């Protein structure tokens, strides 16, 4: 192979990569409440219809984090792919006792401070509701996605899937306060190489409810 051929191969390679990149379609997602406001902390997933198009990943070496800051879980909603290890560092100067009763993953991290708790492997898809046995108002969610294609919505902004490969997908949305099932939000889409698609969901949410921190002033002996 001479220099000319080598150069041709390089140019062809670069163009191929560029072309491949342009094959990735873009899907813009809006999740609104009944009043038309974009809502945050909704999880949107895109599940390829050909489920063989992505293998179930091996447990990731990289660990995700759900923090505990000022007696709250942070972030409030965390999205990970199935088979992800999650660490629960405690950044408060007091101890927490994290637990989940959810069928997707039942676990308990007995009273600990700092970063001493063992990471938890989230090995089935579903929603994990986190609680702290000491501080009843602490609640958080981990959405364990079966697909690698997921996004979490942020307040007042549309959410964009940038690199979805060409193909057919079922797209679904989940929110901790939605009144319908996640399955009922399913929308089937077909993406061609250069598609730019907008998808909207309008969800009926139950009113936000959180156990207040200061529910009884003289609370020394109460849980």
């Amino acid at each position: 192979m001479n220099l000319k051929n080598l150069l041709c191969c390089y140019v062809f390679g670069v163009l191929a990569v560029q072309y491949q990149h342009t094959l990735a379609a873009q899907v813009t997602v809006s999740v609104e409440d009944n009043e038309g406001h974009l809502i945050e902390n909704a999880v949107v997933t895109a599940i390829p219809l050909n489920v063989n198009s992505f293998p179930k990943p091996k447990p990731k070496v990289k660990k995700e984090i759900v923090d505990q800051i000022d007696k709250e879980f942070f972030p409030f909603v965390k999205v990970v792919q199935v088979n992800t290890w999650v660490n629960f560092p405690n950044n408060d100067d007091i101890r927490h006792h994290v637990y989940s009763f959810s069928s997707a993953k039942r676990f308990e991290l007995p009273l600990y401070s700092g970063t001493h708790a063992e990471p938890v492997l989230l090995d089935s898809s579903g929603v994990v509701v986190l609680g702290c046995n000491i501080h009843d108002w602490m609640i958080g969610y981990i959405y364990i996605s079966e697909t690698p294609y997921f996004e979490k919505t942020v307040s007042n902004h549309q959410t964009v899937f940038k690199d979805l490969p060409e193909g057919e997908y079922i797209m679904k949305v989940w929110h901790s306060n939605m009144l319908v099932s996640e399955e009922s939000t399913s929308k089937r889409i077909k993406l061609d190489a250069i598609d730019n698609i907008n998808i909207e969901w309008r969800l009926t949410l139950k009113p936000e409810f959180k156990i207040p921190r200061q529910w009884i002033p003289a609370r020394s002996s109460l849980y």
Partner: protein
Amino acid sequence: MNIKFILKIIGLSLCVSASASAEWYSTVEGKYKYSNNLNNGISNDTVDDSIFALSAVGGKYFQLNDHDKLSIQSQFNGEVYDRFKGMNNLDLGGSLALTRKWALGLYAPWTSLSFGGAYIDYNNQVRSGSKFHVQLSSGKRITERLSVWADLQFDKRFTDYNVIVDQGVSGSVYNLTNKSFKLNTLYLFDSGLFIKSSYQFRQGDVVTTTLKNNANPNIDAVTTAASLDATFGSQAEAYRLTGTTHILNAGVSKVIMPHWLMSVEYQYVMIYGKGNNNYFVSTPALTSSYDF
């Protein structure tokens, strides 16, 4: 039992509280309330008054293990009466509570054993003295929004004013012993609005003050202690008798800002004293509390 003992309890609380790895809490509360029967009098022998109260509660939790916590608390309370200045008082005390949560999670039942003491200093010294209580409480969150708990309490109050009056009747009207059972509910309408209610059944000593001589002729036969009570006038006399008390409480609280709570409460007290000496008291109150 005197103020030195109470101060020792508070001192011990503060010393233990100074250690690390625990959680502080403190609340300051201002309350305005009105009582239609301040003296626990029979229907035609009552006085009413408005009261402003300021209290501060501070304490610390020690999470001993996954299920047990120890709470140490100090509290101060002051009351100023609009008309009856003899009722103005300062109350300083402390308490210790050991609480166990019996399982994991939001809905796990819990039980608590607490002990507390306080010294109350009234303008009118006949009421001044120490008080102590032992309380066993247990409760459970029934749903995300509804919690119930019950308190079983034994309390004793010792007056500083120990005088024997005529015919062997004690003058220590404010030496009181009571036991009570209280059922509490709390319902959260939403994260910032909730209602509290309670019913308390109390048995033991009660104190009534007659404002005029012979205002209540039924009282002499059943009284276990008596003394003059200058708070309500030169002819007023305080009597101790045994009785059963029913106390109903209901209140609505609203979170105004993240640490600021406003409450409207109503209390109705029914005292059924020995010898058909019955007293009824209504007390509406407006409370503002700030949680640090």
